[in-house]
């Protein structure tokens, strides 16, 4: 049994404790799901599980062994494997096989035992045949499965998985989920930490952590059917908080846009990486896109479909190999005229204060900066007086995301592109993003969201396009009111005319 007993923990210098009096246990072979919003103390708990952190009060016990005793530390770490969120930061070696072997090598096991364990671990996560691959060439899902294999090769009784799917696309999520099921079948006790309710349904036991306190422990059904409780635990948002979803998979009708406002136009845009070389790669093969002011376009596509290339070209950051970009009034796309919020935009924060960071774009554009900080902070739901003077690096992950978005809004672009804007956010963070986009669209901004997560955006956007292998297609409902896509609802080559504009 992996048991947490009256755990209390506070980070040095923190005002609030991260965990208060948390007690629960994971029985051998059980699948326990621990839910909690961003910042509820989940990752701290994961690091306590195998003594990467030591609690201030209480202790962790693994099959009767104390985790905080030096003599048993190695045994405990062998018994409890921890897998964290970002696979890139957990792979140590330059080949898949070497990485799987890293743990057993550290345990000083004989070679044939290492070989046996690696083969078994790689087979369990479905990575047989990948042995000599360079981890840098793997997909996100493959990388995370390699991390699981690396821990599995230690032959642990328990695995603690801390948001193992939150950095992955839907394909990667499915792969990792299959690997988790394989672990369950092998009889490992699993503590799956997540903010995603989708994983909770077939848990043996459900736990909810809120602001460092364990507020629920019990069977999944009792909680999942209780909407009031889910909202109270910040695992779900009330229906009043976001635009109600329309009939599923049917884009919203679009009001005719103001014809005096220009549209963003991409015409027959293609892009080839390393053109001329033997390893040249066509990322885009001729895409037409029209984004009208006040319209909301969803472009869905998997990793490798060319979405980052399309976004960079649309934002004027990359010159297409062929084709043209510009506005319908004849002006050119320059940085600032089309704002772009990249995936995990918080990595671009750099300034000493939130306010300085927000003003970086406006100052580069020589804009009048009076009042910008206050208005954009308010727009992203952060109180200006509390946040403008703070260092961006002291903020929580969700707050950093908001500041990063605010720093783009500060340039007052007429068009905004967002790449996976809800990735890694909990229910409340996602609701905030949806409210913000709706408000921007209402004010006349042309918005394009790129996401692999259809269910999240499809009913909120006016138009839904599919990007596949460098080509754009109209997805379901494309010929609906307000959209002038000539190709009806069926798939159409992106070199055909595809207009995402208002006024049918």
């Amino acid at each position, binding site marked *: 049994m992996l048991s947490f007993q009256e755990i209390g923990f506070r980070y040095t210098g923190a005002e609030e404790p991260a965990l208060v009096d948390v007690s629960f246990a994971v029985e051998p072979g059980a699948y326990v799901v621990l839910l909690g919003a961003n910042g509820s103390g989940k990752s701290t708990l994961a690091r306590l599980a195998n003594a990467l952190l030591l609690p201030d009060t209480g202790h962790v016990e693994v099959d009767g062994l104390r985790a905080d005793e030096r003599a048993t530390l190695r045994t405990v770490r062998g018994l409890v494997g921890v897998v964290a969120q970002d696979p890139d930061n957990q792979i140590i070696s330059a080949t898949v096989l070497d990485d799987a072997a890293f743990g057993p090598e550290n345990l000083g096991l004989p070679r044939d035992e290492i070989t046996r364990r690696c083969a078994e671990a790689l087979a369990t996560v479905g990575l047989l045949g990948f042995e000599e691959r360079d981890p840098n060439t793997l997909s996100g899902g493959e990388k995370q499965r390699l991390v699981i294999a690396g821990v599995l090769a230690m032959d642990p009784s328990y695995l603690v998985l801390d948001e193992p799917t939150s950095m992955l696309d839907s394909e990667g999520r499915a792969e990792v989920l299959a690997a988790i099921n394989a672990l369950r079948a092998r009889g490992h006790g699993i503590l799956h930490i997540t903010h995603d309710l989708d994983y909770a349904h077939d848990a043996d036991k459900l736990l909810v952590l809120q602001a460092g306190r364990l507020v629920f422990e019990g069977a999944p059904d009792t909680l999942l059917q209780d909407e009031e409780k889910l909202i109270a635990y910040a695992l779900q948002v009330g229906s009043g908080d976001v635009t109600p979803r329309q009939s599923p998979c049917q884009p919203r009708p679009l009001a005719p846009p103001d014809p005096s406002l220009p549209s963003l136009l991409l015409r027959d845009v293609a892009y080839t990486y390393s053109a001329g070389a033997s390893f040249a790669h066509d990322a885009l093969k001729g895409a037409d896109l029209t984004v009208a002011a006040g319209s909301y376009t969803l472009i869905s596509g998997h990793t490798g479909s060319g979405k980052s290339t399309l976004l960079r070209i649309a934002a004027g950051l990359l010159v297409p190999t062929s084709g043209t970009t510009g506005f319908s009034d004849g002006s050119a796309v320059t940085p600032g005229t089309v704002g772009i919020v990249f995936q995990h935009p918080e990595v671009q924060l750099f300034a000493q204060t939130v306010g300085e960071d927000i003003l970086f*774009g406006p100052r580069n554009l020589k804009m009048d900066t009076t009042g910008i900080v206050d208005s954009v902070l308010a727009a992203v739901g952060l109180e200006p007086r509390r946040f403008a003077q703070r260092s961006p690096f002291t903020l929580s992950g969700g707050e950093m995301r908001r500041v990063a978005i605010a720093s783009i809004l500060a340039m007052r672009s007429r068009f905004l592109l967002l790449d996976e804007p809800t990735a890694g956010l909990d229910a409340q963070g996602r609701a905030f993003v949806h409210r913000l986009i709706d408000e921007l669209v209402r004010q006349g901004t042309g918005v394009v969201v790129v996401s692999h997560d259809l269910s999240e955006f499809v009913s909120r956007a006016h138009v839904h396009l599919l990007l596949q292998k460098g080509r754009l297609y109209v997805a379901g409902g494309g010929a609906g009111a307000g959209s002038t896509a000539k190709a009806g609802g069926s798939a159409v080559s992106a070199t055909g005319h595809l207009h995402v504009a208002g006024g049918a």
Partner: protein
Amino acid sequence: MALAVPFGQYVPGTSAVHRLDARFKLLIVTSFVFALFMVDGWTGLLLCAVLLLGAYLLARIPLKLALRGFKPILVILIFTFLANTLTLSAGGDAGALTSDLAATGLVAPNFGALPDSIALIGSFGIKPLGALRGLYFVLRILLLISITSLLTFTSSVVALSDALTALMRPLAVLRVPTEDIATMFSIALRFIPLTAEEAEKIMVAQSARAAVFDKGGLIKRARAWVPVMIPLFVNLFRRADELAAAMETRCYTGRGRTHLKVYVLKVSDLVIGCCGALFFVAAGIFL
């Protein structure tokens, strides 16, 4: 983005050079470099050049690839040559150079018949002997680059890092933390491409906020990189923290490790490696 940043310049192949144990390749390269700097005069240098050319042909590496490696240092090569060739004191006290060169043995005596300097315009002129010396230096730099390129063309980065680790292992006796150094190699191999990719992403993200990197004077350009470097370092520290946790989870201490990979020592590799290394060391000493 799924595009992995290419790292290293390995050209896969099955030639004898490719197949030679990377440990001995490293050994031969080291002794070759030793020879390059130790040989006095053209005989030794030209011998090295011929042997290296032969190795390139044997490895079936297109010479075009090797030439590409010279591009970044072209300016240095031209400067080296011109600085040795041109003189502002043609016709002046030039006898010193000849005796100077003869003393180092760099120019074989039979070149001594050349004139010290040829005046072109006033005292500006060229020194034939200086030109020869310049050529000598240029050729030495070219050979140095070519041999290291050949090593990276014919060995994967993994093989190279494993070889370095293996060659280093005896130092453990001197309490050098060889396991830790080996792990550092391996982490560097993983994270250099990742960091390069991340730097590019942050740069694009700041460009989207109208940052300009290639305009203005030196100081302005350097300052333009601050918004890239700060997030890059903050992220590296975060990565380092998470990586350390992942390594601790898997019980890394740097001591008492066993190894899955064991490189079998082939007698043929051993013979080729040792003979090659001895040959170049001898060439360096006697030529």
